[in-house]
């Protein structure tokens, strides 16, 4: 286990490095970065001065070396949009809001999809199953922003349900639901299909013949074996949410988290901020990946981590 862990950690480091380097290269490609920082009316001397102070006039290799050196100190430069505040600090300021959203959303997804999947699996082909399947399919086919818009419309316009201003939790719930819906769609389908397979298998029939109560069969035996595909997908959904889809949900609901920050940074060409964001996101993704693998091992002792 220890050896596996260190191997995965190493791979994780490679990923983080790879992503950061990629972003570095890509952001340097666009010609003169100074043009984006200074207003168009700036004089040539001001540009030269800025260029020199930020190090953009040095050859790429030396820039890269400096970048790596700074990165190891967790210094990603100063954000140009946020008035020279340290980029990493800015990112860490916006991070909690996104974490709130992702945790809430994924919890909802977890809590909703398991019972839904099980209910659907218990009577496959009947009306309840068909309803669940239809809703799930729509949930995973609809673009996330569309779901968000519909929810936004329904809650604020039609029903005036929630005032998006006050209360710490009230305005978390609908963005969280929006984030959760496609995940619920996919997860429910997986739970359902895994449960159908399990419920048709030999050992379940044996248990039923023995007279074990249905609730115990479903809850204990079948669930354990359905866990692996579910965990895989769940982990993947968390990563999807973290790495990307919070962007959309935050854009629709004006949620001030990392996603909104990323969109802002990209629109404003704030490279240092972009680099810091990418770094943090990459680390989170790697972390979640490793956590999933460890969970595998905990759930199913047969799994050999290779």
């Amino acid at each position, binding site marked *: 286990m220890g050896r596996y862990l260190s191997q995965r950690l190493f791979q994780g480091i*490679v990923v983080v490095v790879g992503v950061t380097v990629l*972003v570095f290269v890509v952001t340097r490609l666009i010609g003169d970065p100074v043009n984006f920082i200074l207003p168009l009316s700036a004089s040539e001397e001001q540009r030269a001065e800025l260029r020199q102070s930020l190090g953009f006039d040095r050859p790429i290799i030396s820039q890269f070396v400096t970048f790596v050196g700074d990165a190891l100190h967790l210094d990603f430069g100063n954000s140009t949009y946020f008035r020279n505040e340290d980029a990493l600090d800015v990112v860490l300021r916006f991070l909690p809001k996104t974490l709130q959203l992702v945790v809430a959303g994924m919890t909802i997804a977890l809590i909703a999809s398991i019972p839904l999947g099980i209910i659907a699996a218990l009577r*496959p082909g009947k009306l309840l199953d068909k309803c669940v399947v239809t809703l799930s399919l729509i949930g995973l086919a609809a673009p996330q922003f569309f779901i968000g818009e*519909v929810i936004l*419309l329904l809650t604020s316009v039609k029903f005036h349900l929630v005032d998006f201003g006050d209360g710490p939790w009230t305005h978390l719930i609908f963005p969280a639901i929006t984030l959760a819906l496609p995940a619920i769609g*996919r997860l429910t389908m997986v739970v359902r299909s895994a449960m*159908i397979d399990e419920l048709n298998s030999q050992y379940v029939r044996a248990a039923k013949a023995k007279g074990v109560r249905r609730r115990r069969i479903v809850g204990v035996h079948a669930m354990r074996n359905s866990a692996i595909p579910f965990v895989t997908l769940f982990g993947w959904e968390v990563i999807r949410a973290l790495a990307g889809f919070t962007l959309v949900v935050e854009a629709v609901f004006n949620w001030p988290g990392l996603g909104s920050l990323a969109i802002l940074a*990209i629109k404003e060409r704030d490279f240092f901020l972009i680099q810091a964001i990418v770094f943090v996101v990459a680390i989170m993704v790697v972390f979640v990946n490793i956590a999933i693998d460890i969970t595998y091992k905990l759930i199913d002792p047969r799994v050999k981590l290779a």
Partner: protein
Amino acid sequence: MTDLHPSSRTDEYGARQQEVDEAIFEEEMLEGRPYEMQAAGKGLFAELRADRPGLLSAVFLAIVLIAAVFAPLLAPYGPVEGNPSTSNIPPVWDGGTWSHVLGTDMQGYDVLSRLMYGARTTLLVAFAVVFVAGLFGIILGMIAGYKGGRTDRYLMRWVDVQVAFPGLLIALIMIAVLGPSLWSLIFVLAFNGWMVYARMTRGVVLSAKERPYVEAAEVVGCKPRRVMFLHILPNLTSSLVTLAVLEFARIILAEATLSFLGLGLQYPDVSLGVMANSGRDAFFSLPRLAIIPGVAITLIVLAVNFLASWLRVVTDPQEREKRHAAGVRSSTAAAASQAAS
């Protein structure tokens, strides 16, 4: 005198003779074409008809495809044909006229026409991305699987690393740098999406490599490239087609999301995502401008997903048997869960 006409005999020998005659008759009719191929041709449509969601989806997608491809001929107006005087006309069910069935947007452009042209662009992007990403991924996967050893390890390491990249974020950054255009969109989406083809191809190649016919081909002296493309590749077609169709759906959603965030194509160029984005501006007063493209995207993706799961059931004999065993009437819905995961 024994009666030589088999049909007049009622005993077992006669029946057997009739079957043989029919078989010979069919054989001559089909003139030596492999039996599997005709069965495939006949059977495919029969299978499609048998499966309701699959059939509906196929029909729907055919309509969409025709509307998209022939948009310049079929659309009632051009995509940017209009002016402020015709703006904000409501759709037919809300008091509008039949000349603008789905109404017009804030610049006065007809929504239905934009929908058709938009579908055209979106589908074009999706096809292009699937083609580019698929080509790259399949070739890489075949090389990795066939060569094995160090090549395999390094290539898969690359795949693993790139799979762990935060996709949407990288896409956004690259588009921001490259500038939002059709080509940068295709490039970025392909860049993010080739890995799944590589992994799948490698898996199939690894298992196909051990088969006797591959060994025979190598012994006879076929060059590796020939072995790969002529002998191993046909094994892939069924899983590849299903995968490609699923990726197609995913790309449509990705393009919509990118355009929605303002980083895909730009107004007044039109794609389904751009329409959704421009619908944001008057969202609370004119929600239909955002809802209509959203519904369109959802329906298309839904149909593609159904088609993909039908394909999966049809091309995989194991899945087909599962359908009968589990007693679930709609196999596509059951298989869609696998497909979606």
